[in-house]
């Protein structure tokens, strides 16, 4: 019973940390409070957003093209398998060791992390478009680009969003260890616990978990939103 109370107490302290500014346990500075949590979250979102934006801008066009032409399937499909095998910490450490710390170095690492699921899912999404539909479009005189834009892309959108969703959650999770590369995200209270204290660390863990769940849920809703009703029945989740 007392352990339960102790545990609840710790979570209570953590929630307190989110809302109330207080003296740092290391002394000399103020930590905690909504202002600070927001600053950390903003940095977290900036980093994640930049990485996702760049990764999508690269992967979706390439995935569309590979899917449309039917080439590079091996690469597109196995990108995810290879990407999955590389631990995020190793990826970030690799970039810190070879390029050094800094926002854009880290963003580059996160872009590499985000590309495989988006690429694989875009490719698969296009390949899964009914061949007859594509053929009739071609028969109507559409050029390749028009087919991609008006037929394949809209029909592949659900899977593309699925890939974006998977990547986004990965990137948000990995941005937590960004402080190792000098970028102060929500992971700072976790990695540099001395400045924020144990409550701060737990508070950050809670906020990160919530952020990941919100990202997942909102992108899932978006994915459902772009899925034509008829397709909702038979879609299987693509690669994780």
């Amino acid at each position, binding site marked *: 019973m007392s352990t339960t109370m102790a545990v609840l107490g710790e979570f209570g302290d953590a929630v307190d940390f989110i809302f109330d500014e207080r003296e740092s346990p*290391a002394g000399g500075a103020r930590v905690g409070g909504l202002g600070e949590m927001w600053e950390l979250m903003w940095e977290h979102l900036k980093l994640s957003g930049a990485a996702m934006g760049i990764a999508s801008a690269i992967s979706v066009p390439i995935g569309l093209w590979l899917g449309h032409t039917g080439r590079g399937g091996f690469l597109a499909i196995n990108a995810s398998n290879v990407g999955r095998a590389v631990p995020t910490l190793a990826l970030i450490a690799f970039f810190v060791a070879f390029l050094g710390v800094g926002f854009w170095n880290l963003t580059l690492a996160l872009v590499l992390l985000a590309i495989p699921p988006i690429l694989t899912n875009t490719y698969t999404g296009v390949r899964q478009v009914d061949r007859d539909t594509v053929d009739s479009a071609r028969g109507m005189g559409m050029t390749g680009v028009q087919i991609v834009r008006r037929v394949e892309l809209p029909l592949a959108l659900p899977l593309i969003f699925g890939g974006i969703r998977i990547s986004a959650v990965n990137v948000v999770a990995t941005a937590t260890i960004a402080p190792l590369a*000098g970028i102060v995200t929500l992971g700072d209270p976790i990695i540099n616990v001395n400045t924020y204290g144990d409550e701060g660390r737990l508070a950050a863990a809670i906020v990160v978990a919530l952020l990941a769940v919100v990202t997942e849920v909102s992108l899932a809703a978006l994915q459902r939103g772009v899925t034509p009703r008829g397709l909702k029945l038979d879609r299987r989740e693509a690669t994780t």
Partner: protein
Amino acid sequence: MLLMLLVASLALAACGDDDDDDGGGGNGGAATQEESTGIQSDQANSGTTITVGSKNFTEQKVLGEIYAQAFEAAGYTVEKQLNLGDEKTALAALEGGDIDAYPEYTGTALLSFFGVQADKLPKDEAAAYDQAREGFAEKNLTAFEPTPFTSSNEVAVTKETAEENNLTTISDLESVAGEFTLYGSPECRQRLDCLLGLQEVYGLEFQRFVPVDIALRHEVLTKGQADVSIVFTTDPQIQREEFVLLEDDKGMFPPYNSTLVMRNEIAEQGGAALEEVVAMVNEGLNDEAMQELNARVDLDKKTPEEVAGEYLSETGLVQ
């Protein structure tokens, strides 16, 4: 009586003589072999358990290992809990009984633990130690005699930066700090011998402070990410020579000798013999030696454990 004098003088001859194993004499050869200058293992000590801790950077890990291995050689039962975190974390672990001892710096103790104001800091090493020792005594902690070496924080910039902006002292940064990024350890933000002190004593307002792991303090300067970084006086020479170390013209940094801080109960258990071991270990730890040990970890990539072992065997403390 005369025989003992003879043995004693032969022993002294043996101690002073590096090359000759035998001790330079036929008689009393067996006796001189026993009179080694190293740490003697005492069976009685095995009843005392000492948990040695350390903070989270190279020099600390090496010191922690040295003391741990020295105590082990003296026959104590030793546990290690190195790499705990910053000074506040280490002190909390010590006061809470998670560890029994760890090496702290006199200057750090004065600023971070005892709240001594920058203008009241003792400039003299011995005075700094005395004040620290008193402060620790109030917490029921024993601060052993300090090491010869001092390891101070220093403010470093690249040679180009120093040339472009005419920087030789920390005060010179006043005009350019607003455009500069300072990289330091996470706790630097709150330390009077780090960012906080630079703000209060020198009035410097940097454009940005970025917290990075202590291990990256040189990296961020060489890779051009940081304009200013905080480094240590005991960093390997080759790393120090790469940069310009700004002079502390307002005397913000106190002396930093390392003193082993131990809980009173364990210190009492160990008694004078324990004090002796610590003194023997400290004797060889001058500035050059500490720099060399740090270099062996940071440059040669040896483990702190290995390097501590090398220190103890090269100085003859542990055979």
